[in-house]
């Protein structure tokens, strides 16, 4: 596509209508095969991604909800008749109203949720990566029962997220949970985990770290095994310490993998719905809600508000877009081709 538009027009043809069709036709004759090959992908993308995306964006400029979506509401009577009445408040285009209402805090707690989401994402990804890297390094050397350790460490990944969410929720139950039982056993007062926003968020982070470390570990372990062992041998001959080898061979060698998994992890954690929704339920009083769970509650409790849901969707998408643009730019500066 870029080649077509980037080609400067031949200087001999005068600017006008007659030149264009011929150029288009020539391009078509030359490249029709390529277009035909691309077509299926374009159609699939259009149906699966662009249509829903643009429809979502369009909805965010309306006030569509469950109650006003149909032009007329029909009431069926059990005796067989049906009365249809025009919907008195049909949905309409409202411009930027939804965005204003969300961003000014008239509806929901956008800024609070964003803050919690950022903390949640940063802490979770940092713990995932740190622990994953540590475990991968430990497992990336010959030892007895290595296979067993690997299987055990991957186990949390194999458990459905909601099962582990409920398990952890119960562990942190204030009266009957294991966490408080252990604390009282060692003489510490039981903690009301869900009564404070930070301890409540802590329970969710612990759950998510437990769930997310295996992925990081496996990905990083895979990355480590692609680092040629000659490098380590050469470094050893040069007298590099273990720490120096780790810093100067393992970490740079892992960069292509780690940058990708960090980006993925960030996006996943940012949108990690089930853990917050099931473990903390947003308690206390909605203070541990992240953007996606807050948006869900705002838009889908009671009469569902599709336009508000789309508004949140667009806002979340824009935040992630901005993040990935900066992230890619940062990578490019470091000379990564990704």
């Amino acid at each position, binding site marked *: 596509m870029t080649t077509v538009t980037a080609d400067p027009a031949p200087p001999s043809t005068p600017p006008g209508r007659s030149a264009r069709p011929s150029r288009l036709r020539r391009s078509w004759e030359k490249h029709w095969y390529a277009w035909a090959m691309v077509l299926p992908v374009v159609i699939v993308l259009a149906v699966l991604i662009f249509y829903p995306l643009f429809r979502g964006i369009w909805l965010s400029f309306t006030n569509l909800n469950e109650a006003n979506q149909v032009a007329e509401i029909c009431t*069926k009577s059990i005796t067989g008749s049906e009365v249809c009445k025009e919907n008195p408040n049909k949905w309409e285009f409202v411009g930027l109203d939804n965005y204003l209402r969300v961003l000014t805090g*008239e509806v929901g707690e956008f800024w609070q949720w964003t803050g919690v989401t950022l903390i949640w994402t940063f802490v979770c990804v940092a713990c995932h990566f740190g622990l994953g890297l540590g475990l991968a390094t430990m497992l990336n050397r010959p030892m007895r029962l290595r296979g067993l350790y690997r299987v055990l460490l991957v186990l949390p990944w194999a458990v459905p997220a909601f099962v582990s969410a409920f398990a952890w929720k119960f562990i942190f*139950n*204030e*009266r009957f949970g294991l966490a408080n039982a252990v604390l009282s056993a060692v003489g510490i007062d039981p903690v*009301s985990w*869900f*009564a404070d926003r930070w301890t409540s968020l802590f329970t969710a982070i612990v759950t998510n770290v437990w769930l997310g470390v295996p992925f990081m570990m496996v990905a990083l372990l895979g990355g480590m095994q692609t680092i040629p062992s000659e490098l380590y041998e050469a470094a050893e001959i040069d007298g590099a310490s273990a720490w120096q080898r780790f810093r100067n061979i393992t970490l740079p060698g892992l960069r292509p993998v780690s940058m990708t998994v960090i980006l993925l992890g960030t996006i996943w954690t940012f949108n990690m719905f089930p853990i917050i929704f099931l473990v903390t339920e947003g308690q206390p009083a909605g203070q541990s809600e992240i953007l996606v769970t807050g948006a869900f509650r705002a838009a*889908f409790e*009671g009469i569902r508000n599709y336009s508000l849901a789309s508004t949140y969707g667009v806002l979340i998408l824009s935040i992630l877009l901005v993040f990935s643009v900066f992230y890619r730019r940062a990578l490019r500066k470091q000379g990564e081709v990704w």
Partner: protein
Amino acid sequence: MRRTARGIAVLASATLALSVAACGGEDKAAEEQPKADPASLTAELTWWDTSDPQNEGPAFQELIAKFNQTYPNVKINYQSVPFGEAQNKFKTAAQAKTGAPDILRAEVAWVPEFASLGYLYALDGSELLSDESDFLETPLASNKYDGKTYGVPQVTDSLALMYNKELLTKAGVSAPPKTWAELKTVSQAVKEKTGAEGVYLNPAGYFLLPFMYGEGGDLVDTGAKKIVINSEQNAAGLKVAKDLIDSGAAAKPSANDSYGTMMTLFKEKKVAMIINGPWEVNNVKSAPTFGGLENLGIAPVPAGSARAGGPVGGHNYTIWSGMPQEKVDAAVAFVKYMSSAESQAFLSEKLGLLPTRKSAYQLDPVKNNAVVAAFQAVNEAAVGRPWIPEAGQFFGPLDQMATEVLIQNKDPKAALDTVARKYKAEVVPGYGL
């Protein structure tokens, strides 16, 4: 340009014609409903039951088996749907026009909402409402929307004070407390003398209503279209509840899973009093450690300075408007059977649920039922809720407020002001503050 415009016009007119034709097809004349013998009625109906599958479900299934003795060819697909999910699940299915159950057990607040969206059959003129006057007024009122009736009351309930007789006796208390002040003294006595906790307050909006009603408050005034949640009365009611916790009379509630915690503690005799409804009677009765119905006391919720009252709750039978017309006879027969005085009496005997028919209260199993008798007094004092489509949305902000006030020590009035602003912005924008 012009050609495309014409094309669009042609397309538009074609779709218009099509849609008009489609609409025309639905206008059917009322079918005749001949009275036939029960065995000739053949249909397959799906019923979503939202009652507790362990405590209440089996009794409903037993009732279905009885129904099939009379109507052998009406097959009922009994599906137990968790109460917390049913509302959204039904709306999704009804909107998609597929997958919704023919019959739904709907909570009282859902009916006006579903009816306003056109998801339910209006039942006026059918056999189901031929003896409308037999139903208790308040439960029936929850089925009315815009002058029509969309459901038949199944059970009614309200919050009551449920207490452990043994623990209260041990504490030297002979009668259950009648006011919140008495509750406080009783709780403290229980705590001192038995080692159990006095009372557990569930920090959720619905469960705080008795405190607010007690001082004469309410959520909204539907007549004057005014939000009254942030009244001084409500704030005073919340202060009463807050004081119970601060003084140590009530157990410190947890923000998460508090309902389950409350029930577990009560069943294990670790707390002497809770505020809950008849739907938990069977659960408490069958708890191995509790000591059965003999040990369970039921009394009206304690009074505040103005009155004593819990919110009216309950469930209704509703019929999905997407159910094909030919199944109507079977659906009516089923709902009629399930809501008959005899069936209601059966349920009250089995589960201690409260009938919604006046005639059911004359039947022996109900008349001689101690639990029902106890709850009848409770229900007479119950306060009606606003039956508007938005009523189901009042509790989200209210739950948040309950946590803020009871657990996070926020000032009641300030928390209520926030709720009022949310009602105005998100729930009932047409109402005044």
